[in-house]
């Protein structure tokens, strides 16, 4: 019931403010404010003091009761002002494996000449993470979001809140960003790493060798590639960098092949492939990835590992292509 209400509210928030791809300044229209439970208790206390002042016809009793009420009002606009004008940058997250927790780091900018205290970011019902944002400076908050499925993970609405200064009222706002974190498949599976075969069975690249290290074509540059291998001539002016590829006929090739897995479901297959990729990478092997519609020729290194994992993460999704590195 409550869960349903929350989902409906979030979808309403989505329609009201579409996900942003740029830093979001908190404006008047998107800041909400309500008393906390201590605020309600304070209201009850004020009512008690008011009755007490009437009962004792205590003039200064009225004055102090009214003073506290006015201070509570004052704290309302202070809470509002603590959020107003604050600029929230989209959260940045390193890729994680499904089943792990993604850590989204948000930057908060304070353009004002006064510091702001006690501002929190909160994801769903997790405890809020508080920071102070110095005057004309910024602070970062890292939110932990569980990554359950492979693919793009969008944290959804993030609540920016404050109870500054007296804790009687909570001002909050919702921010939603398009920026997502990537979730690799969960590395899982019992099968042993397939044996490496000379010449490769994948039929992907480099069957006809012309020596120990033979030219086998071009592919686009990925971070980590040796600069010596960049095909400067082939790279068009202003276009993407291309890298020359060679096949090593002498060394056996390991293909992590979708077709080797006689499993019906897609996800367990991807999980097994992910597991293999990590094992191969750990062992320092050259490995390639064969997926329906997409093959990655054998290679090694951090960039290759990342490319493979990203491909696995996004397999079957609408934008099934290499993501631009964030």
């Amino acid at each position, binding site marked *: 019931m409550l869960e349903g209400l929350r989902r409906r509210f979030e979808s309403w928030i989505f329609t009201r403010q579409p996900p942003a791809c740029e830093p979001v300044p908190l404006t008047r229209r998107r800041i909400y404010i309500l008393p906390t439970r201590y605020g309600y208790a304070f209201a009850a206390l004020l009512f008690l003091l008011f009755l007490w002042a009437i009962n004792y016809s205590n003039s200064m009793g009225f004055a102090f009761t009214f*003073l506290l009420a006015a201070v509570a009002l004052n704290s309302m606009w202070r809470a509002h002002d603590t959020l107003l004008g604050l600029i929230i940058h989209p959260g940045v997250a390193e890729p994680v494996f499904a089943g792990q927790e993604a850590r989204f780091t948000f930057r908060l*900018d304070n353009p004002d000449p006064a510091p702001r205290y006690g501002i929190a970011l909160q994801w769903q019902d997790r405890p809020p993470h508080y920071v102070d944002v110095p005057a004309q400076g910024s602070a970062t908050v890292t939110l932990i979001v569980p990554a359950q499925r492979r693919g793009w993970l969008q944290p959804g609405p993030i609540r920016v809140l404050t109870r500054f200064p007296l804790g009687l009222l909570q001002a909050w706002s919702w921010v939603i960003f398009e920026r997502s974190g990537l979730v690799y498949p969960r590395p899982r599976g019992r099968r042993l790493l397939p044996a490496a075969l000379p010449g490769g069975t994948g039929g992907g690249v480099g069957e006809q060798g012309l020596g120990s290290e033979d030219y086998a074509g071009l592919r686009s540059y990925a971070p980590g590639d040796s600069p010596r291998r960049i095909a400067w001539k082939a790279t068009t002016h202003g276009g993407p960098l291309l890298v020359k590829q060679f096949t090593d006929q002498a060394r056996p090739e390991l293909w992590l092949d979708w077709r080797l897995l006689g499993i019906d479901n897609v996800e367990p297959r991807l999980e097994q492939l992910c597991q293999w990729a990590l094992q191969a990478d750990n062992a320092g092997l050259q490995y390639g990835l064969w997926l329906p519609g997409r093959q990655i020729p054998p290679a090694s290194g951090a960039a290759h590992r990342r490319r493979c994992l990203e491909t696995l993460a996004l397999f079957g999704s609408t934008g099934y292509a290499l993501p631009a590195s964030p």
Partner: protein
Amino acid sequence: MRMPWHRAPQLKPGQPPVELLTPLAVTWLLATLALAVAPHANELPLWLTPLFYAIVGWRGFIAIRGKPLPPRWLLLLVALLAGSGVLLEYRTLLGRDAGVALLTAMTACKLLETRGLRDGVVLVFLGYLLVMSTLLYSQEMLMVGYLFAVVVVMLAAQTMIHQQHAGLIVLAPLRLAGKMAAQAIPVMLILFILFPRIPGPLWGLPKDAYQGRTGLSEEMSPGSVSALSQSDAVAFRVRFVGPPPPPKLLYWRGPVLWNFDGRRWTRHEELPANTPVAFTPEGAAIEYTVIMEPSNRRWLLALDLPASLPPRTGMTPSFQLLRDQPVNEAYRYEVRSYLNYRTGELTATERSRALRLPPRGNARARELAAQWRARDAQPEALVNAALTLFREQAFYYTLTPPLLGAESVDDFLFRTRQGFCEHYASAFVFLMRSAGVPARVVTGYQGGEINALGDYLIVRQADAHAWAEVWLAERGWVRIDPTAAVAPNRIQDGLYAAIADEQTLPFLARRGGGNAEWLRQLALRWDALNTIWNEWVLAYGPDRQKEFLSGLGFGPLDWGDMTVAMVIALSSFGLLFAGLRWRSRWVRDPVARAWQRFCVRLARRGLARSAHEGPLAFAERVAIQRPELAMRASEIGKLYAALRYGPTTPPTAVRRLQRLVRRFRA
């Protein structure tokens, strides 16, 4: 700026995270509570104040050294001991004093189990209650100033109990709280002036709610008025419309006493009517305003004889003003009196009451009265005989009369012959009644001191007085002051003039020069300030509110009108405040202002920026739709983005943005 307190709280399943108080927060709480209890030090039981401060110290030690809190059984023991201590001390837990003591004890116990935010909030709330309870004892300017300061410290503590606000260091919380309290004052004033006041009390008050006020009581026995002469506390202050009457005519009428039991004079219960009792005035009326100090009594004082009624007040057949509720707040009222008058006829019951004496006792006085009556039965002659007795025999006026025996009148008339006004009034009325002249005792105050600084009259408890009234045919009730026969100075110039040694009087009741006269003058200045405070602030109750607001020219207002006025005042203040804030923010942020101007210019040409569009995206769209503007728009967009989201805001760049926007023509 990431600090240790920003760490994620440990989550236990099914339990909200406990937000612990930092040692700094505990220190703030302790400081503010120590300040809040300090004004109570005098009234609290002797053992409680040291206990409270010891616990404050202990808790501070625990917080600073990071020691564990005392075990639960110890806490229970302290609570039990403190509670029963209060109960033993006061025999109740309900009265005002007992209530304050209990509140203090509870606060001390709560300190010992305080660990989380929730406990902190409870302590702050207890602190507010302690501040309010102080107002039951004193609402003087200095005390109110002190309590305002305590509230500021308490607001700082309330901020600091939230661990996420620990970034406010040293005096920053205090500055913030001070600003908040100062900014709250206009709203407080609007509420104070316009919030419709309801006359209290709503329910029964504890018996000791207003204890500790010295003042005239409802009965008179030898020594009861002279006891008041030791107090220079102010009873009430008076502003006259026109020149004040001479001091010898300033008889402030209080309780009228009819019944005598041989020693004690007491009131006769009379029902007040809600119209003034009729009499025939002679001469001009005197109009004046009285600002009474709280007396915890229902009667209001007025010059002999009052001819008008303040609101919610009635008049008894003895010309005594009675309010519907005891005066427990500074109270201001306006009255009209006639100093010369003739009252009406005496009813048969009144006559018999005005002649009633105890069946036995004071035989010599009765015998004397009978002798006078045998000589001349005219009431005037009898009055003169008594006054002559006081004037010509060796009677003395003194603050410290010898004690009287059971036959108080005889003892005084024939043995001690030294007395204060109550002795003379009592003996005189006894003699008159014995001689067959209807007579009664009137208590109240006589005279007062003009404070030239504020142009008003101060009447102190030391001015308490008792006199007599006899009923004469043709003239009605006539005031006779036997004290005037013994010590005419008392009536002419006040108590100080009639007392041989002025040093026996309380400081402020003295007059004549001396080394400390400058101090007395200073005190009078302070009193003038206090009068304004009392008249305009403390006396601002339901009656004064109606009077004040109706006097502004809107005609009579009921509480509905006041509510409307309050809402209007609050919302116009809110709008004004919001406007000022908006303006200052606008002025403060030239970057936003320039960007806004740029967007407005484009919007006029049909190129409105949509809400989700960032500066760069917008500039790009402008470039596509209006290629001739591309260069300048992209420059402005880039510069704005750099200023808004970049690490710094160099003033030269801000000026460049402003210049670019100024020259931009779409």
